[in-house]
């Protein structure tokens, strides 16, 4: 029996890449392949789904086996995979530009640089590079990958089994009674996600348009130094009562935040795809985003894409989206159509096609 095993630096069942890896495993098994997940870091909730990467046998795996490396940062796992005799594939999620992290978390910047090095060095050793966006595919090409394909992140946008958290929804509803729009941004709180720019825009928006506007920054801390700065920045601007940093939340609570949001504001400097933007569109939240890296491709005209992110421009864009009902309806409709492009069903079909074609080229049964 043929096998494609996945390797990741960290397997966190709740993050986008961890979820993607689980869906990929399901797809591969559905194609009649053996498939397991191996990782270096495996936080507790993921331990029944993944194995420590060093437990992968020292000898070449029996039968026809390929190793699929989920590349998103620098890791010892990449060097382990490179040293293996089995043919390899890379699934590329992009690597944050090191300079965006360097002032805040130098060790993360080192990992990012290491990731870029591994990306380049693996180019000649990999049979196929699968990118989650055209933007990422261009980076693979630039790094020297000859055979590439695009297949979006596998994510269950419908979250059919998850209802909104009634407690969180009730709290958000109470906030709404005081009036004012609810801004939402969902992501790890990290320098390249630029939550501080969203805070700046909120400050301008409250001053000019809506003194009761609130901002919910949902996501786990990706940088302790940045989170600490952000909290102090919010306090210094007198926005303590208007900005909430929720930290990591459950899927149910996340749904509550999406349901309560009037607008999703993403001002990231670096995104390889940006799943939360698609989630927002799927849940009928209009998107205002800064046109950086892969965001123009992900948004694809279904949101307001800004070329500048100075506070006044963002504030004006949000005010427009909040008050112009026909525009809002158009954005919601366009968002739903765009989100449908990334439904789990479609993305799974695309991923399956890519892998099936690859296996056929390799002469696998």
């Amino acid at each position, binding site marked *: 029996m043929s096998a494609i095993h996945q390797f990741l630096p960290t397997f966190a069942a709740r993050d986008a890449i961890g979820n993607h890896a689980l869906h990929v495993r399901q797809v591969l098994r559905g194609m009649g392949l053996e498939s397991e997940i191996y990782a270096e870091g495996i936080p507790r909730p993921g331990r029944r789904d993944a194995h420590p990467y060093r437990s992968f046998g020292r000898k070449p795996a029996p039968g026809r086996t390929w190793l699929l490396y989920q590349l998103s940062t620098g890791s010892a796992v990449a060097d382990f995979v490179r040293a293996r005799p089995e043919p390899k594939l890379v699934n590329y999620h992009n690597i944050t530009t090191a300079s965006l992290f360097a*002032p805040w978390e130098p060790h993360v910047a080192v990992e990012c640089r290491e990731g870029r090095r591994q990306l380049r060095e693996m180019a000649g050793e990999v049979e196929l590079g699968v990118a989650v966006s055209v933007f990422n595919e261009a980076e693979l090409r630039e790094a020297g990958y000859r055979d590439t394909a695009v297949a979006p992140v596998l994510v269950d946008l419908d979250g059919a089994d998850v209802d909104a958290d009634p407690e969180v929804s009730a709290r958000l509803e109470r906030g709404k009674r005081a009036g004012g729009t609810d801004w939402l941004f969902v992501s790890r709180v990290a320098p390249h996600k630029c939550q501080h720019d969203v805070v*700046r825009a909120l400050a301008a928006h409250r*001053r000019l348009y809506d003194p009761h506007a609130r901002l919910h920054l949902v996501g786990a801390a990706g940088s302790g*130094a940045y989170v600490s700065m952000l909290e102090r*920045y919010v306090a*210094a601007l007198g926005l303590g009562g208007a900005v909430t940093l929720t930290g990591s939340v459950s899927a149910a609570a996340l749904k509550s935040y999406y349901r309560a949001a009037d607008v999703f504001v993403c001002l990231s400097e670096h995104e390889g795809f940006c799943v939360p933007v698609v989630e927002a569109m799927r849940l009928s939240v209009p998107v205002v985003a800064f046109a950086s890296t892969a965001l123009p491709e992900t948004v694809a005209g279904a949101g307001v894409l*800004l*070329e*500048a992110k100075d506070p006044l421009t963002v504030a004006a864009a949000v005010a*427009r989206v909040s008050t112009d009902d026909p525009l809002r309806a158009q954005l919601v409709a366009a968002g739903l159509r765009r989100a449908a492009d990334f439904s789990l069903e479609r993305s799974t079909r695309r991923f399956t096609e890519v892998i099936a074609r690859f296996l056929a080229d390799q002469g696998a049964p």
Partner: protein
Amino acid sequence: MTDVIDHRRLLEEIDAEVRRRRESGDLPADFERELDLAFARFAPVHAIGDDFDQVVERAEQSAFVDVLAPTQSAQPLVGHVKRIIRKAIIWEVRYVAQQVGGFSVAITRAVRLLGRRVDALEEVAPPPARLRAAGATTASLDAGRWGPTVVAALEGVTGRVLHTECGDGALVALLAGAGFDAYGADPVEQAAPAGVEVRTDEALDHLNALPDGALGALVLSGCVERLPAGALTRMAVVAGAKVAEGGVVVVLSADPRGWERGRSPVDADLASGRPLRAETWAHLLDAQQFRSEVAAEFAVPDGETLQAVPGADPVLAANFALLNQLLFPPASYAVVASRR
């Protein structure tokens, strides 16, 4: 209601709203600056730019070593264990912290002293970026003269337009009136027309502080006539980074030959910098992925040139014209560079 969103029009309307709000003064002119300063207070030293005093101040703040590590934890037992460990080793942590703190204070003090020496040196030999030519009324600040050229050059530009060394902001006001989201920067604080945003800042300092691709267009004047060649070369590189794709750089400058003619030999020889020729700007900007052309040249007024005797021999008249060309090259020029 149509299903298709006219994004171009929507962004233009948002831009227009931003301009209207800026002109109305609803948002204080220094609002964004205040946000920047608040950010700089808390961001790591590498993320706050190159301001020497701000960086040293941060180093001084960081010299304080807090020996009381946080002990909070979601799990009560872990918090308790942390408190016990902290109590057990605090004497050692204090001992080490005293030495680290003493070293840091000594270093930051040394840097402060060094900074003062550099300040003293700069009093004697000012660095190019701080030089301000006497009599700032150069041709480049004459909004009436240069306005039409600049407005024509900026046609189709979107995003913010910066005019460096904008003086009293007359050209900025003219650009804003023509529908551009324009603001100015000038090292000398002076009253600007109502609703015109002018920041007190050196051209290079201001440009360096902007994110890459932040500008739709950049109009350079004033500084381009008094900075040395090295600083102007740097200016071209920075312009290349800060102007977005599809953007425009306009250089308004005196011609070096005309500039020299208007000064005493001593002033001209001892000036720290001098303007470049239009061709040199074109060369510098083309190296930064621009396509440049000389858009306008202003000649020396007729009254200041050699006049041919009425009815003179055509050969004599031609020689006069040639002499005028050699003796009185254009007084000033505009180079327009579009991003390729």
